[in-house]
């Protein structure tokens, strides 16, 4: 297995064995952080965040800094990008600073692949439009594996905005690489999982069902993991009807403490964060909530990837 110098654009770029190797290195990083504290010495990371995402950006930076690396501070907001510079030109300028890694987040689908094609150094996709967010997917897989011990035969409910939510798209596709997975998709009718994802899942032999928001409570009684995502107001028309539709949905799509009275004690609730009210706050304090651990796992995943792309831990 060889990771050195590779780009991380999409989870689809990795075989099942490679994903398992990344998850194993992640475990090692989590358990023995001391071992890797100088792993990035002399290396520079250049984050290019064309879209604001403090959470992801901080996680990448912390990963680099905690392993003795440095981070190039390139502020897009005040740079010439805002004066109409093209992505190609911005990337060419960054290349001149000789970074060892480039991290990109951009509103356009496919932008990470475009940048990776332009650069020789490893490029990591921190989210391109609605498309991919592979470090999120890897941390989701890592969390599920921690919770269950294995990814084979994962039974999971994916709920919320399944149409525009790229985290649920890539998680579903990534899980489909593993045998015997079962999924339930819960969403408003207007935000159902896109056809092309469903087709892909069918091809891989995944068994799945699509359900409405009203089935949320029932589904968590029979499935051991639920992965919630937020539903944003902007997905609905700006009209009065859009407003009303969103209000109805916000009421129905709310995981409450009350609902958890009748579930198996082993139920795990995941969420990519930030949440906007789809999980009642009191749920955070229960043993069902695993989303804060999940967010923390992002740091370990990003550390593991930096180590692997730099040529460490190759098999």
């Amino acid at each position: 297995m060889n990771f050195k110098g590779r780009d991380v654009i999409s989870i689809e770029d990795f075989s099942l064995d490679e994903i398992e190797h990344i998850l194993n290195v992640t475990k090692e990083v989590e358990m023995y952080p001391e071992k890797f504290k100088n792993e990035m010495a002399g290396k520079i990371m250049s984050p290019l965040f064309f879209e604001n995402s403090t959470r992801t950006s901080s996680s990448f930076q912390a990963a680099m800094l905690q392993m003795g690396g440095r981070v190039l501070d390139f502020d897009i907001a005040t740079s010439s990008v805002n004066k109409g510079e093209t992505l190609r030109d911005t990337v060419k300028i960054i290349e001149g600073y000789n970074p060892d890694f480039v991290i990109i987040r951009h509103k356009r689908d496919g932008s990470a692949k475009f940048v990776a094609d332009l650069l020789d150094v490893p490029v990591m996709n921190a989210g391109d439009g609605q498309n991919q967010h592979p470090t999120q997917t890897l941390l989701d897989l890592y969390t599920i594996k921690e919770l269950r011990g294995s990814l084979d035969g994962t039974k999971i409910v994916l709920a919320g905005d399944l149409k525009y939510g790229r985290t649920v798209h890539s998680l579903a596709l990534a899980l489909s690489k593993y045998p015997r997975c079962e999924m339930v998709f819960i969403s408003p009718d207007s935000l159902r999982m896109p056809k092309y994802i469903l087709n892909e899942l069918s091809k891989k032999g995944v068994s799945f069902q699509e359900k409405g928001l009203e089935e949320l409570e029932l589904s968590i009684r029979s499935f051991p993991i639920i992965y919630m995502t937020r539903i944003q107001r902007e997905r609905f028309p700006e009209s009065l009807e859009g407003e009303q539709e969103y209000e109805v949905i916000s009421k129905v799509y709310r995981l409450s403490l009350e609902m958890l009275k009748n579930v198996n004690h082993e139920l795990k609730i995941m969420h990519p964060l930030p949440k906007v009210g789809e999980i009642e706050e009191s749920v955070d304090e229960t043993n069902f909530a695993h989303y804060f651990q999940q967010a923390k796992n992002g740091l370990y995943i990003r550390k593991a990837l930096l180590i692997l792309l730099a040529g460490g831990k190759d098999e």
Partner: protein
Amino acid sequence: MSEKIIGYIENGIVVDHIPQGEVWKLARILGFDSKGEGRVSLGDGYASQKIDKKGILKVEGASLSEYQLNLIALIAENASVSIVENGVVVDKKKIEIPKLMKIVYCNNQNCISNDAHEKLDPKVNYKGDGIFLCDYCKRIFGKKDLKFVGID
């Protein structure tokens, strides 16, 4: 046989076995419309042994570039393309959908390749069975969603 269905060609090209309904679009994207040069004859809805119903396109005084042959393949993969000189067929062109092409746009509007400011060439892969895949955003789309660079 087809030569007898519509107008006679002395020197030019004949595209036969075009799926019914596609001949008008093909003429347009090849530039053989009212703006183009040469005498164009179009026919549609004829019985065909090869496909269900077919259209035929003949253009006097025209030749076909590699690019145009690719466009024909995209619209009518099973079409036969003949070059006519002095009233006889002197060459039959093989057409094939290119594996990677810059001549069709990705149909995902949010794709970086559709960003007017960045001005990239699209990169679309043909995966067979009428399925196209954008190399940038990895979105899959079908033949009916094709938009052609420089035309649409």
